[in-house]
Protein backbone atom coordinates (compact mmCIF):
# COMPACT_ATOMS: atom_id res chain seq x y z
CA UNK A 1 0.00 0.00 0.00
CA UNK A 2 2.69 2.40 1.06
CA UNK A 3 4.72 1.41 -1.98
CA UNK A 4 1.92 2.22 -4.46
CA UNK A 5 1.30 5.68 -2.97
CA UNK A 6 5.02 6.22 -3.19
CA UNK A 7 5.24 5.43 -6.90
CA UNK A 8 2.01 7.38 -7.45
CA UNK A 9 3.48 10.41 -5.69
CA UNK A 10 6.71 9.79 -7.53
CA UNK A 11 4.96 9.79 -10.88
CA UNK A 12 3.10 12.96 -9.95
CA UNK A 13 6.28 14.72 -8.92
CA UNK A 14 7.99 13.64 -12.07
CA UNK A 15 5.06 14.79 -14.17
CA UNK A 16 5.10 18.09 -12.32
CA UNK A 17 8.78 18.59 -13.10
CA UNK A 18 8.25 17.71 -16.75
CA UNK A 19 4.99 19.56 -17.26
CA UNK A 20 6.47 23.06 -17.63
CA UNK A 21 8.82 21.88 -20.35
CA UNK A 22 6.01 19.92 -21.95
CA UNK A 23 3.84 23.03 -22.07
CA UNK A 24 6.62 25.10 -23.58
CA UNK A 25 7.72 22.52 -26.13
CA UNK A 26 4.99 23.05 -28.79
CA UNK A 27 5.91 26.74 -28.97
CA UNK A 28 9.55 25.87 -29.22
CA UNK A 29 8.83 23.34 -31.96
CA UNK A 30 6.71 25.88 -33.85
CA UNK A 31 9.49 28.47 -33.60
CA UNK A 32 12.15 26.02 -34.73
CA UNK A 33 10.12 25.06 -37.79
CA UNK A 34 8.23 28.22 -38.78
CA UNK A 35 10.90 30.75 -37.90
CA UNK A 36 14.35 29.18 -37.86
CA UNK A 37 13.62 26.33 -40.26
CA UNK A 38 11.99 28.72 -42.70
CA UNK A 39 14.91 31.13 -42.42
CA UNK A 40 17.29 28.27 -43.19
CA UNK A 41 15.14 27.22 -46.15
CA UNK A 42 15.04 30.74 -47.59
CA UNK A 43 18.80 31.11 -47.13
CA UNK A 44 19.24 27.81 -48.94
CA UNK A 45 16.93 28.92 -51.77
CA UNK A 46 18.98 32.08 -52.19
CA UNK A 47 21.82 29.84 -53.39
CA UNK A 48 19.69 27.94 -55.90
CA UNK A 49 18.33 28.50 -59.39
CA UNK A 50 14.70 28.75 -58.16
CA UNK A 51 12.44 30.64 -60.53
CA UNK A 52 8.67 30.27 -60.25
CA UNK A 53 8.90 27.36 -57.81
CA UNK A 54 11.67 26.32 -55.44
CA UNK A 55 14.23 24.18 -57.20
CA UNK A 56 17.47 22.90 -55.83
CA UNK A 57 20.15 23.47 -58.43
CA UNK A 58 23.06 24.99 -56.52
CA UNK A 59 24.36 28.22 -58.06
CA UNK A 60 26.55 29.56 -55.26
CA UNK A 61 26.67 33.33 -54.87
CA UNK A 62 25.24 34.02 -58.31
CA UNK A 63 21.90 35.37 -57.05
CA UNK A 64 23.63 37.84 -54.74
CA UNK A 65 25.97 38.82 -57.49
CA UNK A 66 23.07 39.48 -59.84
CA UNK A 67 20.97 41.13 -57.12
CA UNK A 68 23.45 43.92 -56.59
CA UNK A 69 23.64 44.55 -60.31
CA UNK A 70 19.87 45.01 -60.66
CA UNK A 71 19.06 48.69 -60.91
CA UNK A 72 15.79 48.39 -59.01
CA UNK A 73 17.51 46.79 -56.02
CA UNK A 74 20.00 49.63 -55.84
CA UNK A 75 17.14 52.10 -56.08
CA UNK A 76 15.43 50.22 -53.26
CA UNK A 77 18.55 50.35 -51.07
CA UNK A 78 19.07 54.06 -51.71
CA UNK A 79 15.40 54.68 -50.96
CA UNK A 80 15.65 52.69 -47.76
CA UNK A 81 18.67 54.73 -46.66
CA UNK A 82 16.86 58.01 -47.37
CA UNK A 83 13.57 56.83 -45.93
CA UNK A 84 14.96 55.19 -42.80
CA UNK A 85 17.27 58.04 -41.81
CA UNK A 86 14.66 60.78 -42.33
CA UNK A 87 11.92 58.70 -40.76
CA UNK A 88 13.97 57.94 -37.65
CA UNK A 89 15.37 61.45 -37.20
CA UNK A 90 12.10 63.31 -37.83
CA UNK A 91 9.93 60.94 -35.78
CA UNK A 92 12.38 61.17 -32.90
CA UNK A 93 12.57 64.96 -33.10
CA UNK A 94 8.80 65.39 -33.24
CA UNK A 95 8.17 62.71 -30.63
CA UNK A 96 10.69 64.19 -28.22
CA UNK A 97 9.41 67.76 -28.68
CA UNK A 98 5.81 66.73 -28.17
CA UNK A 99 6.73 64.72 -25.07
CA UNK A 100 8.74 67.54 -23.51
CA UNK A 101 5.98 70.06 -24.22
CA UNK A 102 3.23 67.76 -22.98
CA UNK A 103 5.20 67.32 -19.80
CA UNK A 104 4.86 71.04 -18.86
CA UNK A 105 1.63 70.64 -16.87
CA UNK A 106 -0.41 71.17 -20.01
CA UNK A 107 -4.14 71.67 -19.73
CA UNK A 108 -5.95 69.25 -22.00
CA UNK A 109 -3.13 66.73 -22.02
CA UNK A 110 -5.74 64.00 -21.71
CA UNK A 111 -7.28 65.15 -25.00
CA UNK A 112 -4.06 65.87 -26.88
CA UNK A 113 -2.22 62.63 -26.09
CA UNK A 114 -4.77 60.31 -27.71
CA UNK A 115 -4.92 62.60 -30.75
CA UNK A 116 -1.15 62.33 -31.20
CA UNK A 117 -1.21 58.59 -30.82
CA UNK A 118 -4.29 57.40 -32.68
CA UNK A 119 -2.61 56.99 -36.12
CA UNK A 120 -0.63 54.12 -34.61
CA UNK A 121 -3.88 52.15 -34.34
CA UNK A 122 -4.55 52.47 -38.08
CA UNK A 123 -3.49 50.12 -40.80
CA UNK A 124 -0.76 51.45 -43.10
CA UNK A 125 -3.20 50.80 -45.93
CA UNK A 126 -5.64 53.30 -44.40
CA UNK A 127 -2.85 55.80 -43.80
CA UNK A 128 -1.66 55.34 -47.36
CA UNK A 129 -5.17 55.85 -48.76
CA UNK A 130 -5.65 59.05 -46.77
CA UNK A 131 -2.30 60.58 -47.69
CA UNK A 132 -2.34 59.43 -51.30
CA UNK A 133 -5.38 61.57 -51.83
CA UNK A 134 -4.32 64.44 -49.58
CA UNK A 135 -1.07 64.74 -51.55
CA UNK A 136 -2.63 64.28 -54.99
CA UNK A 137 -2.10 67.65 -56.68
CA UNK A 138 -5.29 67.43 -58.75
CA UNK A 139 -7.62 67.02 -55.85
CA UNK A 140 -5.88 67.36 -52.47
CA UNK A 141 -3.79 70.03 -50.80
CA UNK A 142 -2.56 71.75 -53.97
CA UNK A 143 -6.05 72.03 -55.40
CA UNK A 144 -7.38 73.39 -52.10
CA UNK A 145 -4.69 76.08 -51.99
CA UNK A 146 -5.56 77.05 -55.56
CA UNK A 147 -9.24 77.32 -54.64
CA UNK A 148 -8.27 79.52 -51.71
CA UNK A 149 -6.59 81.85 -54.20
CA UNK A 150 -2.95 80.79 -53.78
CA UNK A 151 -2.55 80.06 -57.48
CA UNK A 152 1.21 79.57 -57.50
CA UNK A 153 1.19 76.89 -54.78
CA UNK A 154 2.51 73.57 -56.05
CA UNK A 155 2.98 70.35 -54.15
CA UNK A 156 3.26 67.48 -56.59
CA UNK A 157 5.90 65.38 -54.84
CA UNK A 158 3.84 62.21 -55.07
CA UNK A 159 3.94 62.38 -58.88
CA UNK A 160 7.61 63.34 -59.00
CA UNK A 161 10.20 60.57 -59.36
CA UNK A 162 12.76 62.53 -57.40
CA UNK A 163 10.50 63.56 -54.54
CA UNK A 164 8.00 60.71 -54.18
CA UNK A 165 10.06 58.90 -51.54
CA UNK A 166 9.68 61.94 -49.27
CA UNK A 167 5.91 61.60 -49.33
CA UNK A 168 6.40 58.10 -47.89
CA UNK A 169 8.45 59.74 -45.12
CA UNK A 170 5.65 62.23 -44.40
CA UNK A 171 2.98 59.55 -44.11
CA UNK A 172 5.20 57.25 -42.04
CA UNK A 173 6.15 60.06 -39.66
CA UNK A 174 2.47 60.92 -39.31
CA UNK A 175 1.74 57.36 -38.35
CA UNK A 176 4.47 56.71 -35.80
CA UNK A 177 5.72 59.97 -34.27
CA UNK A 178 2.94 59.82 -31.66
CA UNK A 179 4.24 56.46 -30.58
CA UNK A 180 7.73 57.89 -30.10
CA UNK A 181 6.10 60.68 -28.08
CA UNK A 182 4.52 58.09 -25.79
CA UNK A 183 7.88 56.39 -25.23
CA UNK A 184 9.63 59.64 -24.35
CA UNK A 185 6.76 60.78 -22.17
CA UNK A 186 6.99 57.57 -20.15
CA UNK A 187 10.73 58.21 -19.79
CA UNK A 188 10.18 61.82 -18.70
CA UNK A 189 7.60 60.81 -16.10
CA UNK A 190 10.11 58.45 -14.57
CA UNK A 191 12.70 61.15 -13.89
CA UNK A 192 13.20 62.09 -10.25
CA UNK A 193 11.98 65.62 -9.68
CA UNK A 194 14.14 66.10 -6.57
CA UNK A 195 17.26 66.24 -8.73
CA UNK A 196 15.64 68.86 -10.96
CA UNK A 197 14.59 70.95 -7.97
CA UNK A 198 18.08 70.77 -6.51
CA UNK A 199 19.57 71.89 -9.81
CA UNK A 200 17.04 74.72 -10.03
CA UNK A 201 18.08 75.94 -6.60
CA UNK A 202 21.66 75.93 -7.85
CA UNK A 203 20.46 78.28 -10.59
CA UNK A 204 20.46 76.00 -13.62
CA UNK A 205 18.44 77.28 -16.59
CA UNK A 206 15.72 75.16 -18.20
CA UNK A 207 17.92 74.64 -21.26
CA UNK A 208 20.73 73.32 -19.08
CA UNK A 209 18.35 71.16 -17.07
CA UNK A 210 17.27 69.45 -20.25
CA UNK A 211 20.69 69.23 -21.81
CA UNK A 212 22.62 68.11 -18.76
CA UNK A 213 20.16 66.16 -16.66
CA UNK A 214 16.99 65.16 -18.48
CA UNK A 215 18.14 64.12 -21.95
CA UNK A 216 20.99 61.94 -20.68
CA UNK A 217 18.46 60.09 -18.51
CA UNK A 218 16.32 59.43 -21.57
CA UNK A 219 19.03 57.32 -23.16
CA UNK A 220 17.05 54.06 -22.90
CA UNK A 221 14.06 55.74 -24.58
CA UNK A 222 16.30 57.01 -27.41
CA UNK A 223 17.70 53.54 -27.89
CA UNK A 224 14.26 51.88 -27.90
CA UNK A 225 12.90 54.47 -30.33
CA UNK A 226 15.85 53.94 -32.64
CA UNK A 227 15.55 50.17 -32.59
CA UNK A 228 11.77 50.11 -33.09
CA UNK A 229 11.79 52.74 -35.84
CA UNK A 230 14.67 51.23 -37.78
CA UNK A 231 13.03 47.83 -37.61
CA UNK A 232 9.72 49.32 -38.83
CA UNK A 233 11.54 51.14 -41.63
CA UNK A 234 13.27 48.03 -42.96
CA UNK A 235 9.99 46.10 -42.88
CA UNK A 236 7.97 48.89 -44.55
CA UNK A 237 5.81 47.42 -47.24
CA UNK A 238 2.11 48.19 -46.87
CA UNK A 239 2.54 51.94 -46.74
CA UNK A 240 4.45 52.12 -50.00
CA UNK A 241 1.98 49.79 -51.70
CA UNK A 242 -1.00 51.89 -50.63
CA UNK A 243 0.59 55.32 -51.07
CA UNK A 244 2.55 55.08 -54.30
CA UNK A 245 2.47 51.42 -55.35
CA UNK A 246 6.25 51.71 -55.53
CA UNK A 247 5.96 54.32 -58.26
CA UNK A 248 6.13 56.52 -60.19
CA UNK A 249 7.97 53.83 -62.17
CA UNK A 250 9.93 52.19 -59.38
CA UNK A 251 10.97 55.47 -57.77
CA UNK A 252 9.68 54.49 -54.32
CA UNK A 253 10.66 50.82 -54.37
CA UNK A 254 11.94 49.51 -51.03
CA UNK A 255 13.62 46.16 -50.32
CA UNK A 256 10.29 44.75 -49.10
CA UNK A 257 8.44 45.65 -52.32
CA UNK A 258 11.39 44.45 -54.39
CA UNK A 259 11.37 41.07 -52.66
CA UNK A 260 7.67 40.62 -53.20
CA UNK A 261 7.67 41.56 -56.85
CA UNK A 262 10.73 39.46 -57.77
CA UNK A 263 9.47 36.41 -55.88
CA UNK A 264 5.80 36.37 -56.70
CA UNK A 265 5.22 38.36 -59.88
CA UNK A 266 8.49 38.14 -61.79
CA UNK A 267 9.20 34.50 -60.93
CA UNK A 268 12.78 35.14 -59.84
CA UNK A 269 12.53 33.30 -56.55
CA UNK A 270 16.28 32.88 -56.13
CA UNK A 271 16.82 36.62 -56.39
CA UNK A 272 13.80 37.29 -54.16
CA UNK A 273 15.16 34.93 -51.52
CA UNK A 274 18.57 36.58 -51.58
CA UNK A 275 16.98 40.00 -51.11
CA UNK A 276 15.00 38.65 -48.12
CA UNK A 277 18.24 37.33 -46.64
CA UNK A 278 19.84 40.76 -46.94
CA UNK A 279 16.82 42.27 -45.17
CA UNK A 280 17.07 39.74 -42.37
CA UNK A 281 20.78 40.35 -41.93
CA UNK A 282 20.22 44.10 -41.71
CA UNK A 283 17.57 43.73 -39.03
CA UNK A 284 19.58 41.11 -37.16
CA UNK A 285 22.57 43.46 -37.07
CA UNK A 286 20.41 45.92 -35.14
CA UNK A 287 18.17 43.62 -33.11
CA UNK A 288 20.53 40.89 -31.92
CA UNK A 289 22.90 43.12 -29.93
CA UNK A 290 19.92 45.04 -28.54
CA UNK A 291 18.00 41.94 -27.44
CA UNK A 292 21.17 40.38 -26.08
CA UNK A 293 21.86 43.44 -23.94
CA UNK A 294 18.24 43.57 -22.75
CA UNK A 295 18.16 39.92 -21.76
CA UNK A 296 21.50 40.09 -19.97
CA UNK A 297 20.44 43.17 -18.04
CA UNK A 298 17.30 41.44 -16.81
CA UNK A 299 18.99 38.38 -15.36
Amino acid sequence: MAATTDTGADFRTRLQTWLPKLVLSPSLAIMLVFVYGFIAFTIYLSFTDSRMLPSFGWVGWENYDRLFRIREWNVALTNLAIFASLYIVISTAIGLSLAIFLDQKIRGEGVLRPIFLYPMALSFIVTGTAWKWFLDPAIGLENTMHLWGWESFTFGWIKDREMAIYTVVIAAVWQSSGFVMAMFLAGLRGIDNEILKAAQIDGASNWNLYRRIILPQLRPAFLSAFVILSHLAIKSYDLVIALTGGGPGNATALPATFMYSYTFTRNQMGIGASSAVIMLMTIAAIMVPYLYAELKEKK
Partner: protein
Amino acid sequence: MAVASPETAIRTSRITRAFIYLFLLLFALFYLLPFGIMLINSVKPLSEITGGNMIALPRDWTIQPWLSAWSTAQIGVEPTGLRPYFINSLMMAIPAVILSTVVGALNGYVLTKWRFRGDTIIFGLLLFSCFIPFQIVLIPMARILGILQIAGTTPGLILVHFVYGIGFTTLYFRNYYAAFPTELVRAAQIDGAGFFQIFWRIMLPSSGPIIAVSFIWQFTNIWNDFLFGASFASGDAAPMTVALNNLVNSSTGVREYNVHFAGAIMAAAPTLLVYIVAGRYFVRGLMAGSVKG
Protein backbone atom coordinates in the same frame (compact mmCIF):
# COMPACT_ATOMS: atom_id res chain seq x y z
CA MET B 1 14.32 56.50 -6.33
CA ALA B 2 12.47 59.21 -4.42
CA VAL B 3 8.81 59.66 -5.14
CA ALA B 4 8.67 60.77 -8.75
CA SER B 5 5.67 63.00 -9.26
CA PRO B 6 4.08 62.53 -12.65
CA GLU B 7 4.62 66.17 -13.65
CA THR B 8 7.99 67.76 -14.20
CA ALA B 9 9.36 70.38 -11.82
CA ILE B 10 10.35 72.60 -14.75
CA ARG B 11 8.93 76.13 -14.56
CA THR B 12 8.18 78.05 -17.74
CA SER B 13 7.39 81.67 -18.58
CA ARG B 14 4.12 82.88 -20.09
CA ILE B 15 5.52 83.43 -23.56
CA THR B 16 7.09 80.00 -23.59
CA ARG B 17 3.79 78.49 -22.53
CA ALA B 18 1.93 80.27 -25.32
CA PHE B 19 4.45 78.89 -27.79
CA ILE B 20 4.10 75.41 -26.34
CA TYR B 21 0.33 75.46 -26.65
CA LEU B 22 0.56 76.70 -30.23
CA PHE B 23 3.02 73.96 -31.13
CA LEU B 24 0.87 71.26 -29.55
CA LEU B 25 -2.30 72.51 -31.24
CA LEU B 26 -0.61 72.65 -34.64
CA PHE B 27 0.47 69.08 -34.28
CA ALA B 28 -2.98 68.02 -33.10
CA LEU B 29 -4.24 69.53 -36.36
CA PHE B 30 -1.55 67.68 -38.33
CA TYR B 31 -2.64 64.35 -36.85
CA LEU B 32 -6.35 65.00 -37.18
CA LEU B 33 -6.39 66.51 -40.66
CA PRO B 34 -5.90 63.58 -43.06
CA PHE B 35 -8.36 61.33 -41.27
CA GLY B 36 -10.82 64.14 -40.55
CA ILE B 37 -10.87 65.23 -44.17
CA MET B 38 -11.41 61.67 -45.22
CA LEU B 39 -14.40 61.51 -42.90
CA ILE B 40 -15.90 64.75 -44.25
CA ASN B 41 -15.44 63.68 -47.84
CA SER B 42 -16.93 60.25 -47.31
CA VAL B 43 -20.36 61.85 -46.93
CA LYS B 44 -20.08 64.12 -49.99
CA PRO B 45 -21.34 63.33 -53.48
CA LEU B 46 -18.46 62.69 -55.88
CA SER B 47 -19.05 65.93 -57.82
CA GLU B 48 -18.35 68.00 -54.70
CA ILE B 49 -15.00 66.24 -54.21
CA THR B 50 -13.65 66.49 -57.74
CA GLY B 51 -15.01 69.98 -58.31
CA GLY B 52 -14.75 71.47 -54.84
CA ASN B 53 -12.70 72.19 -51.78
CA MET B 54 -11.65 69.21 -49.68
CA ILE B 55 -11.90 71.08 -46.41
CA ALA B 56 -15.42 72.41 -47.03
CA LEU B 57 -18.29 70.66 -45.32
CA PRO B 58 -20.64 68.82 -47.68
CA ARG B 59 -23.50 70.85 -49.20
CA ASP B 60 -25.51 67.69 -49.82
CA TRP B 61 -24.95 65.12 -47.13
CA THR B 62 -25.20 61.59 -48.41
CA ILE B 63 -24.59 58.17 -46.93
CA GLN B 64 -24.60 56.61 -50.41
CA PRO B 65 -20.79 56.17 -50.48
CA TRP B 66 -20.97 54.22 -47.23
CA LEU B 67 -23.72 51.95 -48.48
CA SER B 68 -21.85 51.43 -51.71
CA ALA B 69 -18.53 50.67 -50.00
CA TRP B 70 -20.21 48.22 -47.65
CA SER B 71 -22.33 46.22 -50.05
CA THR B 72 -22.07 47.06 -53.75
CA ALA B 73 -18.62 48.42 -54.61
CA GLN B 74 -16.52 46.46 -57.07
CA ILE B 75 -13.71 44.58 -55.25
CA GLY B 76 -11.66 42.63 -57.73
CA VAL B 77 -14.23 41.15 -60.08
CA GLU B 78 -17.35 40.92 -57.95
CA PRO B 79 -19.51 43.89 -56.90
CA THR B 80 -19.79 42.59 -53.34
CA GLY B 81 -18.71 45.63 -51.36
CA LEU B 82 -16.38 45.27 -48.41
CA ARG B 83 -18.78 43.35 -46.17
CA PRO B 84 -17.56 39.79 -46.92
CA TYR B 85 -13.95 40.89 -46.42
CA PHE B 86 -14.79 42.60 -43.16
CA ILE B 87 -16.24 39.28 -42.00
CA ASN B 88 -13.12 37.46 -43.28
CA SER B 89 -10.95 39.69 -41.14
CA LEU B 90 -13.07 39.05 -38.06
CA MET B 91 -13.05 35.29 -38.66
CA MET B 92 -9.29 35.45 -39.03
CA ALA B 93 -8.43 37.83 -36.19
CA ILE B 94 -10.59 36.49 -33.37
CA PRO B 95 -9.31 32.86 -33.29
CA ALA B 96 -5.72 33.94 -33.93
CA VAL B 97 -5.87 36.46 -31.08
CA ILE B 98 -7.32 33.97 -28.62
CA LEU B 99 -4.94 31.16 -29.55
CA SER B 100 -1.80 33.25 -29.42
CA THR B 101 -2.82 34.82 -26.11
CA VAL B 102 -3.50 31.45 -24.43
CA VAL B 103 -0.18 30.04 -25.60
CA GLY B 104 1.66 33.25 -24.67
CA ALA B 105 0.18 33.17 -21.16
CA LEU B 106 1.31 29.58 -20.57
CA ASN B 107 4.76 30.31 -21.99
CA GLY B 108 5.17 33.39 -19.82
CA TYR B 109 4.10 31.38 -16.78
CA VAL B 110 6.66 28.65 -17.46
CA LEU B 111 9.46 31.07 -18.29
CA THR B 112 9.07 32.99 -15.02
CA LYS B 113 7.77 30.54 -12.43
CA TRP B 114 9.19 27.20 -13.58
CA ARG B 115 12.60 28.27 -14.69
CA PHE B 116 15.08 25.70 -15.95
CA ARG B 117 18.52 25.70 -17.50
CA GLY B 118 18.46 27.25 -20.94
CA ASP B 119 15.13 29.02 -20.56
CA THR B 120 16.67 32.39 -21.38
CA ILE B 121 17.92 30.99 -24.68
CA ILE B 122 14.43 29.72 -25.50
CA PHE B 123 12.99 33.09 -24.64
CA GLY B 124 15.64 34.77 -26.78
CA LEU B 125 14.69 32.53 -29.72
CA LEU B 126 11.01 33.40 -29.24
CA LEU B 127 11.79 37.09 -28.86
CA PHE B 128 13.87 37.35 -32.01
CA SER B 129 10.94 35.93 -33.97
CA CYS B 130 8.99 39.14 -33.21
CA PHE B 131 11.43 41.18 -35.20
CA ILE B 132 12.24 39.16 -38.30
CA PRO B 133 11.23 40.72 -41.61
CA PHE B 134 8.42 38.43 -42.68
CA GLN B 135 9.77 38.39 -46.24
CA ILE B 136 12.20 35.75 -45.01
CA VAL B 137 9.37 33.27 -44.30
CA LEU B 138 7.03 34.02 -47.21
CA ILE B 139 8.33 31.42 -49.65
CA PRO B 140 8.44 28.39 -47.30
CA MET B 141 5.15 29.46 -45.70
CA ALA B 142 3.45 29.46 -49.09
CA ARG B 143 4.74 25.90 -49.61
CA ILE B 144 3.60 24.65 -46.19
CA LEU B 145 0.14 26.17 -46.57
CA GLY B 146 -0.09 24.47 -49.95
CA ILE B 147 0.94 21.11 -48.48
CA LEU B 148 -1.59 21.50 -45.65
CA GLN B 149 -4.16 22.46 -48.30
CA ILE B 150 -5.09 25.67 -46.52
CA ALA B 151 -3.41 28.06 -48.96
CA GLY B 152 -5.69 30.98 -49.80
CA THR B 153 -8.08 30.30 -46.92
CA THR B 154 -8.94 31.95 -43.63
CA PRO B 155 -7.71 28.95 -41.56
CA GLY B 156 -4.36 29.36 -43.33
CA LEU B 157 -4.15 32.98 -42.23
CA ILE B 158 -5.18 32.04 -38.67
CA LEU B 159 -2.26 29.62 -38.54
CA VAL B 160 0.17 32.24 -39.88
CA HIS B 161 -0.93 34.93 -37.43
CA PHE B 162 -0.97 32.49 -34.53
CA VAL B 163 2.55 31.31 -35.27
CA TYR B 164 4.07 34.77 -35.62
CA GLY B 165 2.05 36.15 -32.70
CA ILE B 166 3.45 33.76 -30.09
CA GLY B 167 6.69 35.74 -29.70
CA PHE B 168 4.92 38.95 -28.74
CA THR B 169 2.33 37.37 -26.44
CA THR B 170 5.05 35.40 -24.65
CA LEU B 171 7.01 38.62 -24.20
CA TYR B 172 4.00 40.35 -22.63
CA PHE B 173 3.15 37.60 -20.19
CA ARG B 174 6.75 36.91 -19.28
CA ASN B 175 7.40 40.54 -18.37
CA TYR B 176 4.14 40.73 -16.46
CA TYR B 177 4.58 37.50 -14.53
CA ALA B 178 8.19 38.35 -13.73
CA ALA B 179 6.82 40.96 -11.31
CA PHE B 180 4.36 38.49 -9.77
CA PRO B 181 5.58 37.22 -6.34
CA THR B 182 7.11 33.78 -6.84
CA GLU B 183 6.64 33.06 -3.09
CA LEU B 184 2.90 32.71 -3.70
CA VAL B 185 3.55 30.06 -6.32
CA ARG B 186 5.98 28.19 -4.05
CA ALA B 187 3.55 28.33 -1.12
CA ALA B 188 0.78 26.90 -3.29
CA GLN B 189 3.15 24.16 -4.43
CA ILE B 190 3.91 23.20 -0.83
CA ASP B 191 0.15 23.02 -0.23
CA GLY B 192 0.05 20.45 -3.03
CA ALA B 193 -1.28 22.54 -5.92
CA GLY B 194 -0.13 21.37 -9.34
CA PHE B 195 1.14 23.21 -12.40
CA PHE B 196 -2.23 23.96 -13.99
CA GLN B 197 -3.99 24.53 -10.68
CA ILE B 198 -1.54 27.27 -9.80
CA PHE B 199 -1.90 28.83 -13.22
CA TRP B 200 -5.68 28.68 -13.08
CA ARG B 201 -6.23 29.70 -9.45
CA ILE B 202 -3.33 32.05 -8.76
CA MET B 203 -1.89 33.49 -11.98
CA LEU B 204 -4.96 33.95 -14.16
CA PRO B 205 -7.14 35.86 -11.66
CA SER B 206 -4.53 38.60 -11.52
CA SER B 207 -3.75 38.63 -15.24
CA GLY B 208 -6.63 40.86 -16.36
CA PRO B 209 -4.56 43.85 -17.50
CA ILE B 210 -2.00 41.84 -19.45
CA ILE B 211 -4.69 39.76 -21.13
CA ALA B 212 -6.24 43.04 -22.26
CA VAL B 213 -2.87 44.24 -23.56
CA SER B 214 -2.28 41.00 -25.42
CA PHE B 215 -5.77 40.94 -26.94
CA ILE B 216 -5.61 44.54 -28.08
CA TRP B 217 -2.12 44.37 -29.47
CA GLN B 218 -2.67 41.11 -31.29
CA PHE B 219 -6.01 42.25 -32.63
CA THR B 220 -4.56 45.53 -33.92
CA ASN B 221 -1.61 43.79 -35.55
CA ILE B 222 -3.60 41.01 -37.14
CA TRP B 223 -6.45 43.22 -38.31
CA ASN B 224 -3.99 45.68 -39.85
CA ASP B 225 -1.77 43.08 -41.49
CA PHE B 226 -1.42 43.39 -45.23
CA LEU B 227 1.64 41.37 -46.23
CA PHE B 228 0.36 37.94 -45.15
CA GLY B 229 -3.13 38.69 -46.40
CA ALA B 230 -1.84 39.73 -49.81
CA SER B 231 0.54 36.77 -50.02
CA PHE B 232 -1.64 33.93 -48.81
CA ALA B 233 -5.30 34.90 -49.24
CA SER B 234 -6.12 36.77 -52.39
CA GLY B 235 -9.61 36.39 -53.83
CA ASP B 236 -12.60 35.48 -51.71
CA ALA B 237 -10.62 34.86 -48.53
CA ALA B 238 -8.82 38.22 -48.62
CA PRO B 239 -8.85 40.21 -45.39
CA MET B 240 -10.15 43.77 -45.14
CA THR B 241 -6.81 45.53 -45.76
CA VAL B 242 -6.25 43.65 -49.02
CA ALA B 243 -9.81 44.29 -50.17
CA LEU B 244 -9.48 47.99 -49.36
CA ASN B 245 -6.28 48.21 -51.35
CA ASN B 246 -7.98 46.49 -54.28
CA LEU B 247 -10.90 48.89 -54.05
CA VAL B 248 -8.68 51.97 -53.98
CA ASN B 249 -6.00 50.95 -56.46
CA SER B 250 -7.62 48.87 -59.13
CA SER B 251 -10.94 50.53 -59.76
CA THR B 252 -11.48 51.01 -63.44
CA GLY B 253 -13.42 53.94 -64.82
CA VAL B 254 -14.36 56.81 -62.52
CA ARG B 255 -12.47 56.91 -59.24
CA GLU B 256 -15.12 57.07 -56.58
CA TYR B 257 -13.09 58.82 -53.93
CA ASN B 258 -15.98 59.10 -51.50
CA VAL B 259 -16.49 55.34 -51.64
CA HIS B 260 -12.76 54.79 -51.08
CA PHE B 261 -12.85 57.00 -48.00
CA ALA B 262 -15.89 55.26 -46.56
CA GLY B 263 -14.12 51.94 -47.12
CA ALA B 264 -10.91 53.17 -45.49
CA ILE B 265 -12.84 54.31 -42.43
CA MET B 266 -14.58 50.95 -42.24
CA ALA B 267 -11.20 49.23 -42.33
CA ALA B 268 -9.96 51.53 -39.58
CA ALA B 269 -13.09 51.37 -37.42
CA PRO B 270 -12.47 48.17 -35.39
CA THR B 271 -8.95 49.09 -34.32
CA LEU B 272 -9.92 52.70 -33.70
CA LEU B 273 -12.81 51.55 -31.56
CA VAL B 274 -10.49 49.34 -29.55
CA TYR B 275 -8.13 52.27 -29.18
CA ILE B 276 -10.87 54.61 -27.98
CA VAL B 277 -12.34 52.11 -25.53
CA ALA B 278 -9.06 50.72 -24.19
CA GLY B 279 -6.35 53.20 -25.18
CA ARG B 280 -4.58 52.77 -21.88
CA TYR B 281 -3.83 49.11 -22.61
CA PHE B 282 -2.94 49.90 -26.19
CA VAL B 283 -0.19 52.25 -24.99
CA ARG B 284 1.05 49.63 -22.55
CA GLY B 285 1.24 47.12 -25.37
CA LEU B 286 3.27 49.51 -27.51
CA MET B 287 5.64 50.06 -24.61
CA ALA B 288 6.06 46.36 -23.97
CA GLY B 289 6.81 46.04 -27.67
CA SER B 290 9.97 47.98 -26.98
CA VAL B 291 11.00 44.93 -24.92
CA LYS B 292 11.18 46.63 -21.55
CA GLY B 293 8.07 45.61 -19.59
